[in-house]
């Protein structure tokens, strides 16, 4: 399991009602149910993932996040999670605002575009970074809104969003000292716990 997903359960209290935006094959929801006994609902657009989730006994609703969350009621979830989907959205800032309306707290993870390897790739080769983690070309990537740790924190600042906790996953897929000291340089994936 991706390391950012392994960090998330620590920030969720037991039996919470959790909405997982872009829940994929449901591995995070399964983990949250097993470890925290949460009441979980996944939102997903990929048909194979939807079937996988149903197969696993999860509740999953087919929905395109780019259409927003208008049909979900205010504060209807304790926690709204969005792991590795922020960069694929047309209007990430609007979705984050919507997440904070629907959930009391939110957890967001995203790839940090300011990681040293991205910087090196762009600086040395003058080309958009392609890596194991982001294996797409600029023209066919679903990731249309990359940002950095600093960018995300600026967005929170501008929108009056409170950062309850944050961490980064470093190269060796763990929380490292380097990542703690310089998250924007050594974080591959950023993990933020936010609220209004």
């Amino acid at each position, binding site marked *: 399991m991706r390391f950012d997903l392994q960090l998330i359960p620590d920030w969720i209290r037991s039996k919470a*009602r959790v909405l997982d935006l872009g829940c994929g094959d449901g591995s995070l929801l399964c983990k949250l149910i097993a470890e925290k006994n949460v*009441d979980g*609902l996944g939102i997903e657009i990929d*048909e194979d993932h*939807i*079937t996988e*989730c*149903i*197969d696993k*006994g*999860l*509740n*999953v*609703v*087919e*929905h395109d996040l780019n259409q927003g969350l208008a*049909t*979900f*009621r205010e504060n*209807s979830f304790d926690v709204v999670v969005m792991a590795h989907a922020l960069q694929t959205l047309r209007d990430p800032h609007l979705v984050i605002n919507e997440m904070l309306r629907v959930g009391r707290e939110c957890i967001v993870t995203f790839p940090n575009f300011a990681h040293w390897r991205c910087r090196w790739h762009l600086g040395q080769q003058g080309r958009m970074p392609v890596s194991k983690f982001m294996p797409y070309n600029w023209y066919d990537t679903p990731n249309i809104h990359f940002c950095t740790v600093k960018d995300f924190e600026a967005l929170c600042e501008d929108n009056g969003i409170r950062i309850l906790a944050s961490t980064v996953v470093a190269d060796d897929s763990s929380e490292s000292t380097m990542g703690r000291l310089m998250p924007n340089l050594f974080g591959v994936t950023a993990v933020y716990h936010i609220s209004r």
Partner: protein
Amino acid sequence: MPEQSVGIVTPQSHHFAQPIELACGRSLMQYDLVYETYGKLNSDCSNAILICHALSGHHHAAGYHHENETKPGWWNSYIGPGKPIDSDQFYIVSVNNIGGCHGSTGPKSINPETGTPWQNDFPLLRCRDWVNTQRELMKVLGIQQWAAVIGGSLGGMQAMRWALEYPDEVRHCVVIASALKLSAQNIAFNEVARQSISSDPNFHSGYYMSHNVIPKQGLRLARMIGHITYLSEDGMGQKFGRELKTGNFSLGNDEVVEFEVESYLRYQGDVFSGSFDANTYILMTKALDFFDLAREYNDDPVEAFSNATCSFLVVSFTSDWRFSPERSREIVDALVAARKPVSYAEIEADFGHDAFLISNERYEKVFRAYMQRVAGETV
């Protein structure tokens, strides 16, 4: 007979001598229900599934009535051994609703008080009347709780009503191509269908049996209108295009030109009007129009669903414009707000509302995955 079928099935009938009070205030003093079952009830009676039929449906949902029957039951693609509603795992009960015209008590049946057919005097029915009579059959069959109640369209409305009226007796509710209530446009189509029937000179205010005639033309037209709305423009385009059944457009040719789609609609109208009862059609469309899941819950579907204790699967089809995906989303959103377990899939399909009856790879996968979950809870 193709493989993966429940094979030859024989409809059964049960006579209910106890009166049942209907939503309209009248009572049926006695009634019959015709039904079919597929598969075996397990020892703790935990694997029973109820199939609720739609407007023109009936009890014959799967298999064949005899060796030479050319068409299987109406949901044969989804009910049978190894199919999503697996007859190797479930005991499946499919009932012809009261008011119907396939053997259960309806307008064609004899009114015991008068000794003549009910015809237009048959009580107006609501969805809950079907649920209540299905429940009487449930008791007869020795079932305390359905593993799932499943229905498409009007059948989905019955399934939802089950979940609210008898929450302890339903573990899963599968609602396919349905709605919390009909839209004005939907009611309008139904009214045109009813008008085409009642304006047939043979209708005689619904007492056509007394005149030994049937309003065949009116029923035929009603079905043709209905049929157009159950398909989509793309689906019709794919199926018929502008292909000609007879004639051609070469100059100097005055042969009669008939498009394939015309011929198809006429055929559908002919078959239907030869086998369906006009009073039943009127009664069923009215029940469809009257249905409003949340009416008695302050018009709040969230409040309505808060009574449910089962899990839900909701399915819609992209090209269905009579029961559009938006209508299904209203069901899903209310369930989510009511904190009920729900899964939802919007299936890409070309065949409009009829898509819920037709084989479709993704629909089958989703349906199968969900039903396996249901099966996993039975012994």
